[in-house]
């Protein structure tokens, strides 16, 4: 199968969906000729013109609000939010406006829009361009949240996001834009709420999201050499969450670590761990561990920044200790 980069996969998904549906359009900062700072959208303005690939002023609440109104009245906007950190700027439009229209109107108004943005530290970008803020939006009823972990997921999830009748926040790992993966040439979509078992195992379940799927897989390879069999699962969407697949795995392995690049406090890792505790408690041989980003603003200095994100070695070490029964009474 051919291999393409995550960036190309997103670009293909957008182009295919824009050819399919004339009500779709892209808006955001530097999306047209510039094709975004990450060049993900290169070539789209040449095919679809500036009427459908719209450069906006640097007014995030303004253009997200505009997308909400366009979506409520029959278009399917795809908003490009240049950095995930800018989610803070658009919280009212996303969480008070987009997320609640369907419910507040008793099902009469819907907001079929996509916000595509990114996450990920270790790019030496400092505290305001490195955050992984998906927990903020996952907390809000009415929003769906997708976290692609490779080029394959990026394309298939994006196509579903565009066709979904709800506001969807799809967050790409900005460090993976140039990573290649096998992507079929034939059209495919990845449904929301269906986790992907990346690797089967019997001793411990490693649940990783987005960038942390690679980390979990690398940890599994380390553990395999030591005779520990780790199962790696990528939920692919955290809202909706495929709880069944996660529970089934944990009932089999009896141990789990949840790994996510958002801050650990009050984060995705805590939510998933809690669901496993509530619904698979009697199957567990050890507490479910959380491994999120450190609860510090992301530092600039490379030696400090690298400490903030879970690593394969760190995951492997925790897995080893869980499997050895060392952490059963850990505080």
């Amino acid at each position: 199968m051919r291999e393409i980069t995550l960036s190309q996969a997103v670009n293909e998904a957008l182009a295919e969906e824009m050819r399919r549906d004339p009500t779709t359009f892209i808006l955001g900062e530097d999306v047209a000729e510039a094709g975004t700072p990450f060049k993900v959208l290169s070539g789209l303005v040449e095919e679809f013109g500036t009427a459908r690939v719209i450069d906006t002023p640097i007014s995030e609440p303004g253009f997200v609000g505009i997308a909400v109104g366009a979506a409520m009245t029959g278009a399917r906007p795809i908003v490009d939010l240049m950095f995930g950190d800018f989610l803070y700027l658009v919280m009212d439009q996303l969480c008070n406006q987009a997320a609640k229209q369907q419910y507040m109107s008793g099902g009469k108004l819907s907001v079929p829009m996509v916000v595509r943005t990114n996450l990920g530290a270790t790019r030496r970008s400092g505290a305001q361009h490195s955050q992984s803020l998906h927990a903020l939006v996952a907390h809000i009823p009415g929003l769906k949240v997708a976290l692609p972990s490779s080029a394959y997921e990026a394309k298939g999830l994006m196509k579903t996001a565009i066709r979904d009748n709800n506001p969807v926040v799809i967050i790409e790992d900005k460090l993976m834009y140039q990573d290649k993966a096998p992507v079929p040439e034939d059209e495919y979509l990845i449904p929301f709420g269906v986790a992907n078992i990346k690797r089967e195992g019997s001793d411990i379940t490693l649940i990783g999201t987005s960038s942390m799927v690679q980390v979990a897989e690398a940890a599994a390879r380390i553990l395999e050499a030591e005779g520990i069999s780790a199962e790696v699962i990528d939920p692919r969407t955290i809202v909706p969450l495929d709880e069944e697949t996660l529970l089934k795995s944990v009932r089999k392995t009896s141990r789990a670590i949840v790994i996510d690049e958002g801050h650990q406090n009050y984060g995705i890792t805590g939510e998933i761990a809690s669901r496993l505790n509530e619904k698979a408690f009697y199957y567990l041989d050890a507490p479910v561990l959380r491994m999120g980003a450190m609860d510090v603003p992301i530092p600039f200095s490379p030696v400090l920044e690298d400490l903030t994100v879970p690593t394969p070695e760190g995951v492997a070490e925790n897995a080893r200790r869980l499997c050895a029964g060392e952490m059963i009474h850990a505080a």
Partner: protein
Amino acid sequence: MTSKTNAKTNTTKALSTAEYLRMYTQMVRIRTFEDNANQLYLSAKMPGLTHMYSGQEAVAVGICEALNDNDHITSTHRGHGHCVAKGANFTEMFCELLGKEEGYCRGKGGSMHIADQSHGNLGANAIVGGSMGIATGSALRAKLLGHDDVTVCFFGDGGTAQGLLYEVMNMAALWNLPVIYACENNGYSEYTKTEEIAAGSITARAEAFGIEAFTVDGQDVIAVNELSKKLVARCRNNEGPFFVELMTYRYHGHHVGDINREYYRSKQEEADWKENRDPIIHFRSWLIEQGIATEDEIETLNQEIKQDAKTAVAYAEAAAYPDLSEVDMHVYAETDPATLRAGN
């Protein structure tokens, strides 16, 4: 080039008798709706609070009578007037205010989120200025998809303090969008005089973006309607956006519970507006002077509207609440599974 004009009532008859009477009827329907809503609050029959539109009727009616059902509006927390003026009926509105299943939003929205999609009302909004993006986005959609509808964005003088307004006006002007920003200046930003929160000129802010801005007497329904018709036609002719500041007055407090309010507004000032600048009294006198309607005909209309409201309130009071199973319905819209398959 921008211009600022002060529209005044054209004293010659430009509309048909039916059109004038419809404007009068809609204004009285709003006032009557609010009187009943206030009564429901005072008698503890309505959950929560609500924000009265009384005093501002000529704004909503003058503008909405220049629109058709395909045109869109976005409304505010003080939104009952916009909702009635855009064509909503009393029964579904009162049901919504009381949280009943037959309300416009199945009781899930309430006063501050009432929406009536069937008449193009994209909804009230409980965040001051919260719908400015929505209105502008509706206009962008119209332009993008080649639709000829116009969107009116209602907001108050208080809303002009939100940064969102300036972001979206900038884009509306850059992209020539068919949207009219209608600023209802009722003199008060919640519990604070507008002069204390708004520096400089409100219309000059729109003009800075190259948006043509107008100031109009918001108590004069004919002046509002004449200006609105011109601007709507110009929007359809790709000449938008526009900005209108409508000078008006809020008879009640910020909300129905804001009763002792002399610390920010005198009773004398309120009485002056009610006695001398009431939009309904003013228009009623004009209709009679012009021979468009007689006193008897006007009284008959008023009584019919009162009766309609009474019937609707009684219906809403007796109507059923939503089934408890509805609490987690409508969080997400359905998506047809077929559209999510490759090849479709």
